[in-house]
């Protein structure tokens, strides 16, 4: 077979494969894009307001202070003016910890999918998620609840913004806030979907951290596949306190400069003072626990 023929057939195979994937509902894509886009615009606005100060900071000294629970691991002078100081973290919670507790907390009527030759639970601890989150530890599974196919994910986060109803609700969606006491709130988003359902629950805690539960179902409806008591039990379980405590500190770049994502997603870096924050020993595991 010639290279041309081979390439042509590969293209056909790619097309056949791609067409087997059904995209999420347009309204889901649209509503999330609006919410995410607004966050980006707010960040741009904040950066613009701080731009002049940032420019002064970039030109200034490399003085910095370490966040609690961190230590300087490496200071590698470079031949150029760019100097990165790597900051590492003590005692990050593992992906195994997230998965074991996630599975243990799932209600008994959540039937985790049997493995298809591989794992059915996946976990990521302290990975970097694009540009919208600071630090996250996550566990995820697909399952069946009362005959409905669902995807359930739980993450413990220190985001660089707090998800509240003030961020806006897409057309047809809803958002409610409930006080949980002790300064904590539960924010519930319902996304409008014709053929499926998606609910997100944020247990926002003092200090800018949260426990975030997402429940996606393959049936349309106004109620999540889990009951509210089950949802509350998941997001308020004491086992997450350890993960919350272990979350790396917020990245506080000088003069409000936003940290930059770099190294093919492996770290954040403060361009203002050269501090480089690796992904805290992120572990990614898949298991049949």
């Amino acid at each position, binding site marked *: *077979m010639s290279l041309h023929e*081979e*390439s042509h*057939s*590969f*293209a056909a*195979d*790619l097309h*056949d*494969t*791609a067409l*087997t*994937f*059904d*995209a*999420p509902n*347009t309204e889901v*894509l*649209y509503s*999330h*894009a*609006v*919410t*995410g*886009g*607004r*966050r*980006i*615009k707010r960040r*741009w*606005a*904040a950066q613009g*307001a701080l731009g002049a100060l940032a420019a002064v900071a970039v030109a200034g000294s490399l003085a910095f202070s370490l966040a609690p629970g961190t230590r300087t691991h490496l200071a590698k002078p470079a031949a150029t003016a760019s100097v990165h100081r790597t900051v590492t973290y003590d005692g990050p919670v593992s992906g195994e910890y997230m998965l074991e507790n996630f599975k243990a907390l799932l209600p008994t009527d959540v039937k985790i*999918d*049997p*493995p*298809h*030759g*591989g*794992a*059915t*639970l*996946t976990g*990521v601890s302290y*990975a970097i*998620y*694009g*540009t*919208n989150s600071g630090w996250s530890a996550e566990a*995820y599974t*697909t399952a069946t609840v009362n005959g409905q*196919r669902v*995807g359930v*994910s739980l993450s413990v986060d220190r985001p660089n913004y707090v998800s509240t109803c003030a961020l*806006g609700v897409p057309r047809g969606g809803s958002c409610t806030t409930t006080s949980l006491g002790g300064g904590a709130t539960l924010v519930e988003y319902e996304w409008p979907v014709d053929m499926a359902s998606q609910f997100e629950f944020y247990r926002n805690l003092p200090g800018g951290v949260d426990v975030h539960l997402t429940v996606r179902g393959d049936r349309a409806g106004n109620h999540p596949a889990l009951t509210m008591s089950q949802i509350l039990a998941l997001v308020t379980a004491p086992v997450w306190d350890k993960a919350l405590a272990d979350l790396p500190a917020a990245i506080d770049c000088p003069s409000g400069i936003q940290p930059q994502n*770099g190294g*093919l*997603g492996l770290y954040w870096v403060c361009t203002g003072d050269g501090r480089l924050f690796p992904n805290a020993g992120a572990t*990614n595991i*898949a298991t049949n626990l």
Partner: protein
Amino acid sequence: MSNPDSDPSAVDPEDFHAFVASRGTHLYRTACLLTSGDTPLAEDLVQETLSRMYARWGRRGRIENPSGYAQTVLVNAFISARRKSSTERAGVEALAGQVAVPRADLTLRVTLLDALRQLSAQDRAVLVLRYWEDRSVEDTAAALKLSPSAVRSRSMRALARVRGQLGADFVEFAES
């Protein structure tokens, strides 16, 4: 500080909704190929891409080709924010039971995605842009910030690796 959401003319929500409706599925399928079938990650990538598009939509006069721009944002987001391979593997394996597709298609999908997963992110992106997006070598090079010669060599090398991974299956798929 100005409120970026306060100017209703800054964003045309109807146009953007139409853009999502017309391009969302294609973006998602591209993301599925890039992530070797990790559908949760694919969704994340599409959401991030569309979020960036929305943020710039009010300035869309500066985007000559929104569809092409979105694809470029998606590919770069994939390369810069991808998760580790173990998550991808679980995603692919979970897929087998998630979507009802004909057995032949499922076999092709699992086999091809498994082969793609063996490639580096950049090699995968080269193949997806060239053979799914049908982009030229020059366009692919521009999107990935590579030279055209690098795209050609990566493409040939990646195809050879796919051929090596699939073995007889590649010939079977190629000839079918």
